[in-house]
């Protein structure tokens, strides 16, 4: 056991930290779920890519640095600590990317990965349907072969980043006779596909964080199938395990707000208006619990990363991580909002907003954590059944 970082790891940390210090924009970008904010964030992706920081864990030939899992975790710690912009490329880089590495043809890798890395092509996820959320096997949107194309009819929803993305990765039912998770196929779909319309849907914060997609005889070429016709379930599960596992949420994402909440507590304790009373001491305990949880998640992750680097596989214990980070994230932001008191409800543009309203924004975003990528209820079933072996 050696829990100190190697010289190489320390040097890597130093490099990304310095780069971020020089490049992170002083002023926050507009929300990536507005048209201009989306392009601002695309610009930031290009800036990262220019110095090969956009996909550090990928091979060099696709724009990465071939770095180790540990280095990737270090990158993430530094990235979130620096307050750098959110990654508009995340659906592509962390969800689709690993799936293409696993299932894509060489042509597909060469076609899609470099532009994904460079920010030239931003991806959205198009899986859920109005009656199939966590239950992917209930998907109904059909893709029927017609020569070398497929004709798609149906509807997708909760397509995050879908309003402005360039490409969407979707799962369609190519064999309507097959039941449940058979007969599904994974497709890569250009956003300008004729016959596909997209309709922005507002998230809690009112920005069009999602889109609904309507397919009416939309045509997608067979070369856009990832992993083979009828293999959609297997390919999707591989993506889902990325989603639920290490790739989805690195500890750096939670260490940063947990530490900022400690600072907020310090500031509030000093600045508190005496008429309103001191800062509630029970909030201190909760701030500490949240900070502890971020540390626990960090070390659990380093332990898992060591195992994976030694040839291990990510199993159903990924569900432990998903439940843990998503509930921790809600709690970190809820605590900060309680600290903010009457200011907690203020939006970022309110003059009195604490930390530019980032806690309320973050809270609303965090609330989606226990829902998406398989609700936490489903994750707990998985833990009970597949980790502990309880009967279905």
């Amino acid at each position: 056991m050696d829990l100190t970082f190697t010289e190489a790891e320390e040097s890597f940390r130093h490099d990304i930290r310095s780069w971020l210090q020089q490049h992170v924009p002083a002023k926050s970008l507009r929300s990536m779920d507005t048209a201009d904010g989306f392009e601002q964030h695309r610009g930031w992706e290009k800036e990262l890519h220019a110095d090969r920081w956009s996909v550090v864990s990928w091979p060099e030939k696709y724009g990465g640095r071939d770095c180790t899992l540990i280095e990737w975790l270090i990158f993430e710690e530094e990235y979130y600590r620096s307050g750098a912009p959110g990654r508009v490329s995340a659906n592509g880089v962390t969800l689709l990317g690993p799936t293409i590495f696993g299932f894509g043809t060489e042509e597909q890798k060469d076609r899609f990965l470099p532009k994904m890395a460079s920010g030239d092509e931003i991806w959205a996820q198009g899986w859920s349907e109005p009656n199939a959320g966590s239950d992917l096997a209930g998907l109904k949107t059909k893709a029927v072969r017609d020569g070398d194309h497929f004709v798609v009819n149906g509807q997708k929803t909760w397509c995050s980043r879908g309003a402005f993305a360039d490409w969407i990765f979707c799962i369609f039912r190519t064999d309507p006779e097959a039941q449940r998770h058979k007969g599904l196929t994974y497709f890569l779909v250009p956003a300008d596909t004729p016959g596909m319309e997209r309709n922005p849907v507002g998230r809690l914060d009112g920005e069009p964080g999602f889109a609904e997609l309507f397919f009416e005889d939309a045509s997608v070429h067979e070369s856009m199938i990832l992993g083979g016709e009828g293999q959609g379930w297997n390919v999707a599960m591989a993506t889902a395990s990325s989603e639920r596992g290490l790739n989805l949420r690195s500890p750096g994402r939670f260490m940063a707000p947990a530490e900022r909440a400690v600072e907020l507590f310090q500031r509030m304790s000093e600045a508190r208006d005496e008429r309103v009373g001191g800062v509630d001491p029970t909030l201190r305990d909760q701030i500490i619990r949240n900070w502890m949880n971020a540390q626990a998640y960090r070390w659990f992750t380093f332990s898992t990363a060591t195992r994976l680097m030694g040839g291990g596989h990510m199993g159903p214990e990924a569900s432990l991580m998903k439940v843990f980070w998503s509930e921790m994230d809600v709690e970190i932001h809820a605590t900060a909002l309680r600290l903010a008191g009457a200011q907690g409800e203020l939006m970022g543009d309110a003059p009195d907003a604490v930390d530019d309203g980032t806690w309320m924004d973050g809270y609303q975003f965090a609330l989606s954590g226990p829902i998406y990528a398989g609700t936490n209820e489903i994750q707990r079933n998985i833990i009970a059944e597949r980790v502990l072996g309880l009967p279905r």
Partner: protein
Amino acid sequence: MQFAFTEDQLLFRDTVRDLLANECKPEAVRAAWLNPTGRVPGLWDKLVDMGVAALTAPEAAGGMGMNEVDLVLLQEEAGRAALPEVLIEHTAVALPLLAELGESAWLAKAAAGEVIVGVGVGSPYVLYADQADVLLLVHEDEVHAVPAADVTLTAQRSVDYSRRLFSVAWTPSDATLLAKGPAAQQAVVDACDRGALAAAAQCVGIAQTLIEVTVDYVGQREQFGKVVGSYQAVKHHIANALIATEFARPLAYVAAYAVANSTPHRGRDVSLAKAAASDAVDKAARMALQCHGAIGYTFEYDLHLWMKRGWALAASWGDASFHRDRIGRSLGI
């Protein structure tokens, strides 16, 4: 000991419920989010006509001369409908405060529904200050009634777009002074208690609606071949929210009784009510969102109208921690 409302009180509650069911549907609240006032056009006048708006003003001043026990059920209805109005500020807080301080000019106009009174106690922000004709503001141990023309407002946008909050810059003067000294200070404490009580009752109503809409939704929505509401985890989430809400509700009524009767422990009773109601609505909001899944997370769906009102009211007029601390002090710890 007779812990029940009268038939009249329940009838009045039903009448208000019917009005709001018609006039304050979710689409009306949603429209208020985006209109210039944040309120439902014309609805306040109807509440004035029904006697709700000036319920708490003395009969001598043209009000209904009713008390917090009469009002608490109506605040609960306001919460159920997510009514975007000044029913806490104007009705529950301002009118009794003016009466307690012996003010009569503004009180008569307010009781008649001719003016709206904003209040700047218990919070750094005044709700709907832009629409108030006069603001009750505190400076040291003084309470002032400041005409709208004499204040400068800065909008502070809330996550609940219908809550038009403002910080207020103003200069105390003899012309606006209503009262000062210990009596004024006690009146401010009483005013905060009335605000917290009203907010607690609204929180209970909001929590109830959150539970009801969730029960409806999960009773229809299917996943994995089963109605979502038949999963035990979903059932238990909702049951937990219901338990919190049902045990918060009588505390709101007890607090109303205590305030209406000026009992010695009214402050503590109000804190019990507000702490429990804040926690209940927070729990109900978390539960409702989780049980709805992604649809609950969207702006187009109604759920967030109650959820955000719940967040805002849970933190207003003292959040749960503030009131628990106050209870602790009253218990000598």
